[in-house]
């Protein structure tokens, strides 16, 4: 079993859910990202999702767009992200997955990217603009280097489509709560429960909910139906105020989310 999947299973055994914070690597610098990763790991993150910055993040809302802009301004490179992961993994066991758009990976060289990510200790990869149809070779490479290719399902994914996604998806299935871009929402339509149940019947992988997870109350609402939760924009919005891991607002918010997942 993939290490990512195993973490979910372990938590599930104790009636807990995985909390997966998303942050953009290099926002506002690699050093600051390292501090934030330490904070997240030490305060209960189960998996950390690190974003690779891209100039044109078409699936992201304003908060993540800003984070990516700051990271690009700081000159973040893929090499720097790999060393960051490597350095982090020397001290922490929290697995790292990367999230990115295809072009920077493609420009780096897909094989080189996968090999170096694997060597750095990356455990999984989400490529936002690469649907399963285009992912065959990529996924074979990921497998060879011990990484999970993580794919998304959405409220408009039907049963036929799930069969396509399922063939490639490893680690966990990332369920997008709403049709839309990343960003905080006050409320997530309760009818997605039906969709999640439908998918659960077809897929063995753990399912995590992302997009709009802005408050512990949302985690509580969907707790019984899912195996984990991804929190991105709500975290970054607090981070970008001071870029300080001691900031009370940031600390309280994150601990609240962890508490909602771990009880």
């Amino acid at each position, binding site marked *: 079993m993939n290490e990512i999947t195993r973490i979910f299973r372990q938590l599930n055994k104790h009636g807990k859910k995985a909390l997966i914070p998303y942050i953009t690597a290099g926002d506002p610098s690699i050093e600051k990202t390292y501090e934030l990763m330490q904070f997240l790991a030490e305060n209960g993150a189960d998996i950390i999702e690190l974003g690779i910055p891209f100039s*044109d993040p078409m699936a992201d809302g304003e908060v993540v767009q800003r984070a990516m802009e700051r990271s690009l301004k700081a000159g973040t490179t893929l090499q720097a992200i790999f060393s960051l992961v490597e350095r982090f993994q020397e001290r922490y066991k929290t697995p790292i997955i990367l999230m990115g758009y295809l072009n920077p990976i493609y420009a780096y060289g897909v094989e080189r990217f996968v090999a170096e990510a694997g060597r750095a200790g990356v455990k999984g990869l989400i490529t936002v603009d690469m*649907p399963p149809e285009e992912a065959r070779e990529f996924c074979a490479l990921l497998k060879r280097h011990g990484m999970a290719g993580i794919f998304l399902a959405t409220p408009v994914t039907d049963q036929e489509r799930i069969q396509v996604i399922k063939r490639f998806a490893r680690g966990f299935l990332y369920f997008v709560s709403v049709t839309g871009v990343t960003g905080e929402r006050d409320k997530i339509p309760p009818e997605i429960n039906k969709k999640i149940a439908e998918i659960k019947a077809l897929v063995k992988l753990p399912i995590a909910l992302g997009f709009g997870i802005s408050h512990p109350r949302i985690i509580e609402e969907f707790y019984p139906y899912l195996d984990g939760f991804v929190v991105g924009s709500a975290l970054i919005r607090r981070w970008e105020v001071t870029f300080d891991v001691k900031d009370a607002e940031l600390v309280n918010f994150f601990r609240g989310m962890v508490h909602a997942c771990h009880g």
Partner: protein
Amino acid sequence: MKKGYYGRFGGIFVPETLMPSIYELEAAFFRWWKDRGFREEFNGYLKDYVGRPTPLYYAANLSQRFQVKLYLKREDLCHTGAHKIMNALGQALLARRMGKTRIIAETGAGQHGVAVATACALLGLTCCIYMGVDDVERQKVNVTRMEMLGAEVVGVKAGTKTLKDAINEALRDWVTNVKTTHYILGTVFGPYPYPEMVKAFVSVIGREAQRQIWQKEGRLPEVVVACVGGGSNAMGIFYPFVSKKEVRLVGVEAGGEGIATGRHAARFQGGKVGVFQGTKSYVLQDEKGQIVDTYSIAPGLDYASVGPEHSFLMESGRVEYTYATDDEVLSAFFLTSKEEGIIPALESSHALAYVIKNSHALRHKLIIVNLSGRGDKDIDAVRGRMPI
């Protein structure tokens, strides 16, 4: 060839949320494009609303001056002033058959935006146009036109505040409102089936040109020239000639202030293969794979990537791609205005600039230039640069 690909270019590179809509669009397009009623309706609008066929005009004065035989395919005479209206109408008719009630589109210079707003006004569809705030500022007249046609124009403040950012924002809207909304992409670009569908709606240009040159000259042209931004007008005129190997096809990209300055939009000069906004093609990018700022005096060519089939036609050698600089374009613009009494769009002036620059090598050749749009929109941009 893999479905949706032109050689190694093309494909479908979009977030998962859009995949069902991409398949829905593919199915709808191939169903209705074969449907007689749909074709009759589309062709009816082309004839009586757009004003097709557009003339193939012998440019006697330019021909004499440069010792060539130059014909202009007068797409500038289409309703709304450019070839863009055909794709806008085709997709709007398709959207209506798909039961979509809301249309979104991106626009740079505003030509595609105006065409979409026009089609929506005609067919009673709600219309929202995304446009970078820098372009909103530069193209005020077209913003007013779109608003008069009933469209909502949304200024995009993200990124470089130009065309590529307008596309990002349109994609974000589409992801959000995917159930009710159809996205009318403006060129032979983006995820499959867009490049194929847009080509189908615009290749009437080349079919007409072929018929008209036979009528006038009794033979095929020796050279066909078109400007290439995303590449819809070029694909429209090239495509019916691709199988006629004896016809040279030349695509002209935006050389801006010169390739060496980096201020240009010539993807086949300074770009490399990448994946951007839904498709694999040549892309102007830095060594880290970040998309770079482009520049051209012609806003319709000012874009970092190019339709995937153009990349295929470039690598296969069937089409030659070159570029014209702003200065060359401006002289072609003014010369055509003065010699022929036709004010061409700055975009189309790239194709004219190629002929003028290479007139020696093209001596006595039978040439068709796709005059893809009219230049009224460019008056503010060229004012003050008129030769004395």
